[in-house]
């Protein structure tokens, strides 16, 4: 189980990286942490002809606060996010991705560009209403999380674009929680729900709920959000709202979970995530 042959380059600037993608054509691929791409290549489910390794490109690392948001470099590994509690929900989500070894190597940029429906960070991007910066041969653009995820493993990141950073609004004063349902702690999510809640006294001033693995792309549970917004944050109201979490979803069934079961899990995870957000 080894990758098929490919060419490799590790450019030292963003411009050179983009140029390498342009020159490499459609079978060229960026390499960040490699923890989505290399496993696919080992199973020969992906066989790029050229890998453009971002590891020497400067400026893609680090977490900084700028006014009301954090700027997170695309190459920031999950492990760094996990130990940055100021990131709130994103730190909590990063902490339960796979295992420590994977978290040391896997990057936020790679995860978002890859867009695996079972990956954990995308839903958190939706509810923090994050934006990513994409740099390509024709310049730079910004895409909101809501527009980033198009389909199963398909994102708005163009073939010749590099996702350089993530702008993460700091949800000061919001509580947050992530409930990931899996069989083993190292596993991908069967279903997961993340929530951020802004409480005003005991009233829900605002709430956002994200769902993982309930569709080809991450989802916002808007019906549930609408049902809770402006309401008293009582267990009953939370439960009632969470009952709507799977509204409009139709996740595919697999060996471990049927469509019905996944929808049920989405409701349970959403309720638990909202409830726990109040405590944190």
């Amino acid at each position, binding site marked *: 189980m080894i990758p098929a042959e*490919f060419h490799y380059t590790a450019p030292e600037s963003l411009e050179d990286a983009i140029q390498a993608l342009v020159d490499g054509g459609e079978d060229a691929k960026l390499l960040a942490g490699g923890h989505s791409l290399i496993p696919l290549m080992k199973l020969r489910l992906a066989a790029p002809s050229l890998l453009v390794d971002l590891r020497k490109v400067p400026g893609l690392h680090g977490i900084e606060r700028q006014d009301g948001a954090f700027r997170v470099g695309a190459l920031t590994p999950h492990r760094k996010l996990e130990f940055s509690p100021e990131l709130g929900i994103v730190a909590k989500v990063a902490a339960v991705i796979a295992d420590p070894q994977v978290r040391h190597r896997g990057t936020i940029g790679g995860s978002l560009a890859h867009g695996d429906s079972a990956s954990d960070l995308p839903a958190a991007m939706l509810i923090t209403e994050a934006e990513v910066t994409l740099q390509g041969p024709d310049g730079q653009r910004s895409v909101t999380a809501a527009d980033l995820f198009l389909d199963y493993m398909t994102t708005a990141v163009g073939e010749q674009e590099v996702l350089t950073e993530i702008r993460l609004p700091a949800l000061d004063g919001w509580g947050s929680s992530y409930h990931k349902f899996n069989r083993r702690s190292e596993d991908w999510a069967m279903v997961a729900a993340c929530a951020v809640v802004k409480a005003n006294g005991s009233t829900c001033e605002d709430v956002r709920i994200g769902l993982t693995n309930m569709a080809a792309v991450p989802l916002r549970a808007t019906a549930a959000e609408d049902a809770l917004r402006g309401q008293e944050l009582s267990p009953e109201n939370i439960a009632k709202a969470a009952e709507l979490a799977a509204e409009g979803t139709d996740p595919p069934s697999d060996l471990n979970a049927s469509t019905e079961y996944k929808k049920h899990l989405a409701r349970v995870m959403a309720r638990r995530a909202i409830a726990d957000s109040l405590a944190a």
Partner: protein
Amino acid sequence: MSTVPVRLNVNGVKHTLEVEPRLLLVHALRDKLALTGTHVGCDTSNCGACTVHLNGEAVKSCTMLAVQADGEEVTTIEGLGTEDDLHPVQEAFWNNHGLQCGYCTPGMIMAGAALLAENPDPSETEVRHALEGNLCRCTGYHNIVKSILDAAGRSSSEVSA
């Protein structure tokens, strides 16, 4: 297919290799440098038998290209400690029967050593979570967890031993 040069500092020894870009780090260690203590137990990055330290952090060497480690420091089980000068985690695995067939053991020890470097006084739960990327079929993990806690100077919370 073309080869590329890779400079690796492995266990304090500098090596320059000419490798295919697709060469996995684990195979560079095993097949090119004859460091066979790092094992392979799966195709899907689940088992952790291949765990080494890259600049001090635990990583799965089956899920890295050797070229990604160019210019970096790699520590393998062979570099952690020797027969006469065992690393405390190695010593603790020996004292607590933390291994049976020994196949997962290098990865377990490397994962445990990386945990203790980061968190010298972990709880049992923290140890168990630090090992979530490492599979063992022999020990049921009981004595592995005990070994790592022992290396940290703690005993595990078991009722009996």
